[in-house]
């Protein structure tokens, strides 16, 4: 039997990227919400809801980058130069944010507190915005000639990529506020409900605009979504998005605590599946497929052997850590140093 290792790897990498998006999504989202919540005690609680897990969440981004290098080196070698500026900005933003995580609890003066809180918040926003820009730039297409990126260093910048940048900020904001609904209580939770409503509306608007814009970007997208009979297979995606929106609205009105977060995850999953439908089997649209970009079969096998064993273990202990830190996070003893 002939197994298509490239397809397996494409699914694995796509899964890793998706796990990154939802996991770091909610913790970047918590940072994005900082400007709306100004009291130090509340901000401490917000950061503490993600403090034990953010490091693991961000590791999925390293897996996304490292995995691309490992199994689709051509995609890695063409996408990263194409996305040079937004990726560099994203990394710098994550540097700010990662260090601010530790430092904002250890500041001595109100001024440095404000500075590190600002670094945390701005870092989260810029990282999310740049990730969205990268996504938009990927979708609109990357010029590849031979085995190299052939475009300029500002090609990524377009109204569409800016739009997807804002869309991802809205989406992460929604995930972050739904996470806080789940993990906090009292006044902070009430404010998280209101924030979730706002970011929810923004997210749905963004999904709608991006979905409407995509058919104008390429004929291939149009064929995927609007040609019969393909349309019958893809139609459930927008329908489910609508249903989830209705359910989210309901859950927020009824002050449910876990369902909003699940709805947020569902929205991301559907949007991601929608993207997959549009792009598959392109890994660097419009010209490079997963099979073009695939590494040597021996490299695919060598890494797959370990991944089959290690990935379930990683998922297992990641779940364990989340379970360990389950429950509501409350403002603890006021005295830390």
């Amino acid at each position: 039997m002939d197994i298509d290792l490239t397809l397996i790897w494409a699914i694995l990498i796509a899964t890793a990227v998706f796990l990154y998006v939802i996991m770091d999504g909610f913790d970047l989202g918590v940072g994005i919400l900082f400007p709306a919540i100004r009291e130090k005690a509340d901000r401490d609680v917000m950061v503490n809801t993600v403090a034990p897990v953010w490091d693991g969440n961000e590791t999925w981004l390293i897996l996304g980058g490292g995995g691309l290098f490992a199994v689709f080196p051509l995609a890695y070698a063409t996408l990263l130069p194409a996305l040079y500026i937004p990726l560099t900005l994203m990394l710098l933003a994550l540097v700010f944010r990662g260090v601010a995580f530790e430092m904002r609890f250890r500041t001595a003066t109100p001024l440095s507190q404000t500075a590190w809180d600002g670094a945390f918040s701005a870092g989260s926003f810029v990282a999310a915005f740049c990730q969205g820009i990268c996504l938009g730039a990927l979708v609109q297409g990357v010029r590849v000639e031979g085995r190299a990126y052939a475009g300029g260093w500002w090609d990524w910048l377009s109204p569409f990529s800016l739009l997807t940048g804002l869309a991802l900020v809205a989406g992460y904001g929604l995930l972050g506020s739904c996470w806080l609904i789940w993990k906090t209580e009292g006044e902070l939770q009430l404010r998280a409900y209101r924030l979730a409503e706002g970011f929810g509306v923004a997210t749905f608007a963004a999904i709608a605009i991006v979905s409407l814009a995509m058919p104008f970007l390429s004929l291939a997208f149009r064929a995927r979504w609007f040609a019969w009979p393909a349309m019958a297979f893809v139609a459930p995606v927008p329908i489910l998005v609508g249903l989830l929106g209705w359910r989210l609205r309901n859950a927020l009105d009824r002050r449910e605590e876990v369902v909003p977060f699940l709805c947020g995850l569902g929205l991301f999953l559907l949007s991601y599946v929608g993207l997959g439908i549009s792009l598959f089997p392109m890994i660097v649209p419009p010209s490079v497929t997963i099979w073009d970009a695939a590494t040597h079969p021996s490299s695919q096998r060598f890494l797959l052997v370990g991944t089959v064993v290690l990935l379930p273990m990683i998922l297992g202990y990641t779940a364990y850590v989340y379970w360990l830190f389950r429950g509501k996070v409350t403002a603890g003893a006021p005295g830390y140093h």
Partner: protein
Amino acid sequence: MPSLTLPSAVDLARTQFALTIVWHFLFPAFTIGLASFLAVLEGRWLATGRAVYLDTYRYWLKVFAVAFAMGVVSGLVMSYQFGTNWSVFADRTGPILGPLLGYEVLTAFFLEAGFLGVMLFGLERVGPRLHFLATCLVAFGTLTSAFWILSANSWMQTPTGHTMGADGRFAPADWWAIVFNPSFPYRFAHTVTGAYLTTAMIVGAVGAWHLLRDRTNPRARVMFSMAMWMAAIVAPAQLVIGDLHGGNTYEHQPAKVAAMEGHFETQSRAPAFLFGWPDAEAGETRGAFGIPGLASLYLTHDLDGTVKGLKDIPRATWPTNLPLVFWSFRVMVGLGMLMIALGLASLWLRWKGRLYDATWFQRFAVAMGPSGLIAVTAGWTVTETGRQPFTVYGLLRTADSVSPVAAPAVAASLAAFAVVYLAVFGAGIWYLLHLFNQTPQVHESGPPTGVPIRTAGITPAPALDTPHHGASRPAFQPAE
């Protein structure tokens, strides 16, 4: 009149890689050893029940949290550098190096990141034994990470187990030969030992700093004593490992060793220069002063052994910056000698029962605090600039590895990295120095974020920083 030429994209990309990797490596060079030190401290606490070990553990755990966070975010940048600035390298070596880095993420990064949260915040949730397991897993993760990244780096130095296509792309032929390439065991041993010494120098300096203030502080005594044992045993061992590594390099990369030694002529009874300035144009090391025969002795283990010089190696494969290779090597070796002196002096003082009383020695230990960081940076400069002008030694040139990104883009991002790293990591390091200056206390508190993390309802045990008076104390005692 010399004209002003702007640096090329490849020079800028090299500078950016050097800047980001040197900043990055400062943190793992410290945390690899610190994680193991923490595991030993917690193990000793569990074994003896003595609070001094737990207090010392908590003191260093706060340091570890900050240093590790800086290592993570600077390391994240590295995983994208290959693609942004070195895309041709990435495309050609991806089939070889990609899986090695993939394994690093899967076996090490997730383990570290997953259990770091338990290590920092989880003591009262999981109990001492599971918490000790988490500490050990984090320590194991740091070593596993070193294993894979050094395997990848070593393959770039001594590539084996591959074939090369007509398009210049590498393909794996034998994974065992790739992972355990000829220089890997030596480089792994040398680097991990260097990391342990780096930690020992910092921990020893902090211990000495506090002993100078109060020589009775038991926590300062514990960290100082353990660090000095490390220096006494590992620094001499490093001399042997370094010599073996040098011999391996001489076998596989003679041009690098010739640059390290400043040897242009092939000669028997080759001298080891203490000073000098290798001048590639003149073809000689100017102002050289050395010990005759010593280089022959340690490279060939024969005083009359013949040592190859640069002039018998094609000029196009010479390292591009000879003085940098030459002097970095001397900085590393010189500091290593001082570490050995420190370690041997500690043995003598310990024998005399004056380890905690000799203030001159403690001042010496304080001064040696940054020596490990400087030495590993110098050592990496030797091996990386000594690999030039290749990225994959002998097979892929640095100039042919670079991304098709315009020089202004590389320059702009280089400037951004330089400014941001200096500001963010500068603040982080300043804060670490502030932590080092704080006296290790009885009932040392854990990381400050450990306090508000408590979840309502399921934390019967006191918070990490609550002073453990009377009844609350047993919650943290290991089972008898």
